[in-house]
């Protein structure tokens, strides 16, 4: 079974540019989560999508946005990049438990991340 795949693995941008990160969940997983992890720090929740709809959003400015497609893959867009956006962006997917979303009980499977460097 293929794991969660993210692309690109590494990218370098300059301030003010825009970036799109992509995530393909495990087959059968309907939820996709996005996290930001600055170097040496913990996980900061960005967005949660399930079956094409945004279910929850973290405390980030509107220039962080995303979407989930009918095949459950997802994109994270960051506009007007700032230096502090440099981080590892992690995508995770999960399946429902017997058709239900049970926060925490639905195990998250993470991708290897996209390392964004903003100069």
């Amino acid at each position: 079974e293929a794991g969660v795949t993210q692309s690109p693995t590494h990218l370098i941008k300059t301030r003010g540019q825009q970036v799109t990160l992509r995530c393909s969940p495990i087959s059968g997983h309907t939820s996709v989560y996005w996290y930001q992890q600055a170097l040496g720090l913990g996980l900061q929740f960005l967005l949660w999508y399930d079956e094409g709809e945004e279910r929850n959003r973290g405390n980030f400015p509107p220039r962080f946005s995303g979407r989930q497609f009918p095949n459950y893959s997802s994109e994270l867009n960051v506009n007007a990049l700032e230096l502090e956006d440099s981080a590892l962006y992690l995508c995770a997917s999960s399946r429902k438990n017997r058709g239900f979303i049970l926060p925490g009980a639905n195990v998250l499977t993470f991708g290897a991340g996209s390392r964004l460097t903003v100069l």
Partner: protein
Amino acid sequence: LAKTTQPISMDSYEGQEVNITCSHNNIATNDYITWYQQFPSQGPRFIIQGYKTKVTNEVASLFIPADRKSSTLSLPRVSLSDTAVYYCLVGEYSNYQLIWGAGTKLIIKP
């Protein structure tokens, strides 16, 4: 809203048992507790999950007391490869929030 608190770092030696405790004082009745392991430049990986009492799998045990205000991840006979950051996670059923701890950096020495 639950808040998870765990030690910033811990040291141990190969062959020892390591216990990492996470406090989650405001945990609700239906909330699950999960632990993840993360190596540098990788995504976190599921270790173990529990709801109450004790859960054991091939790599770890999870102890949850009756009041569920804390949980302890137990790693038996650690090796150098267990050096990683360990996160506890509380899934809040009431508002669909995932509350992550800040992570415990575990360093295993030879």
